[in-house]
């Protein structure tokens, strides 16, 4: 990769920070944006499945563990939670916890 260009691009990033939500999206850990297929990000969307934005990360992690182990029964979350390691879940939970409307 061309080092000069990398530096130019990095400098531009600093010079022109995006707004908070945009910066958050660029940092979304692997898998996090797939959750929003069902867990709405928009406040006005369907409320049958709770939103994850702004939730306490520890609660998200605990829920995912309980789904994975089958301790809390679920329709889909057991099958989804099994696809993510503990570290991946922690990263996703921390990211959602940091998002704001």
């Amino acid at each position, binding site marked *: *990769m*061309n080092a000069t*260009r*990398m530096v*130019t*691009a990095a400098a*531009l*990033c600093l010079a*022109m920070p*995006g*707004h908070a*939500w*945009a910066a958050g*999206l*660029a940092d*979304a850990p*692997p*898998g996090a*944006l*797939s*959750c*929003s*297929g*069902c*867990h*709405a*990000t*928009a406040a*006005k*969307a*369907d*409320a*049958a*499945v709770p939103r994850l934005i702004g939730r306490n990360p520890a609660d998200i992690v605990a829920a995912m563990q309980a789904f994975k182990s089958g301790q809390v029964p679920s*329709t*889909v979350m057991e*099958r*989804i939670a*099994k*696809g*993510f390691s503990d570290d*991946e879940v922690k990263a996703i939970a921390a990211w959602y916890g940091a998002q704001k409307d």
Partner: protein
Amino acid sequence: MSAKRTSRREFLKSAAAGAALLPLPAIAQGARGRVVVLGGGFGGGTCARFIKRIDPRITVTLVEANPTFVACPFSNGVIAGLRDIRAQEFGYDKFAGDQVVLSPGTAVDPQGRTVTLGNGSQLPYDRLVLSPGIDIRWDGLPGYTEAAAERMPHAWKAGEQTLLLRRQLEAMEDGGTVVISAPANPFRCPPGPYERASLIAYYLKTKKPKSKVIILDAKDAFSKQRLFQNAWRTLYPNLEWVSLSNGGKVTSVDVGEMTLVTDFGRHKAEVANVIPPQKAGRNAEIAGVADRTGWCPIDPATFESKLQPNVHVIGDASIAGAMPKSAFSANAQAKVCAAAVAKLIAGERPDEPRLINTCYSLVAPDYGISVEGVYRPADGQIKEIEGTGGVSALDAPNSTRALEATFANAWFNTITTEVFG
């Protein structure tokens, strides 16, 4: 090229190409390069939105042929008379006005990096994202022409075809036979034909109970098969599935006789729904990103075409390994692609993604079932992570089926809000 890069060549290939493409004059002006997204459905609509949100400095243009998008998910409910077609319709008014061009893309020049529009104008791009959905293979089933589809609708692109099939079912007398022909893999929405058969059977059971539904299938197995078949046994005794081995493969159709022909015999229908073989939307062919299968091979981490640099393909048109061709997949792929495109334009290395797919199906209005998968790139393909995913429990009580029907509706509302605002 360094040794390190060579050892991860598959992954870095597209990243390197991205760096080489950084438009230097544009950077000097403080802009970030141009992305054109062709096709404003589940894949393209999502991708255009997310690229802009991830890096607002990128100029993003969404090119869509139709001012109104008619969603396929839940369109089987329209066919069964459970839902108004207007619940399927979405516009582009919630996208930034300068971001959407409502005109068909008629040509793509991957060397010159331009897209030509219906009015003759040209849009230059640094990166192009294609999400054109499917086209019917009109040469794929003898007798099944565009004219034939006016008598035997496919209703596999929602809109007029959906309403035509609905009208035919309404007009059919009690005691009639509805024949659905299901294609071989791969095709758009693997559980779709069986959801459709279920909801048509539901309509007939409630309104025309002497009628029956026959599925003629070019396969011996299908998505959520045991869940569907268990439900059919109790709910719809008048629904019959004929597998490939039992002579289900339709080899030609005779529109004049309203007959579907298999190697084992001829099936006369009062209403015939032919779900024909499919391929990536025509634009993929024009852009040179489709291979001999008719679908588009892609890099599993960035969705960049394996045939043309700087062109990404997402959604139904792509060969996404273990991921089925669904709106859920198209939406998940679009977000991964958006992140990768933003990184590549910035000269950075895209992350290794994780993707989820979920396909809900309604067997009856209050009876939902689902299939899930979690995916990652491996060996140059998108593979399902072992031990994940699967289908709804076979022995779940009706209350769980009802809950899944509620969640299915919620999914449709959530995803269409995410795409169309």
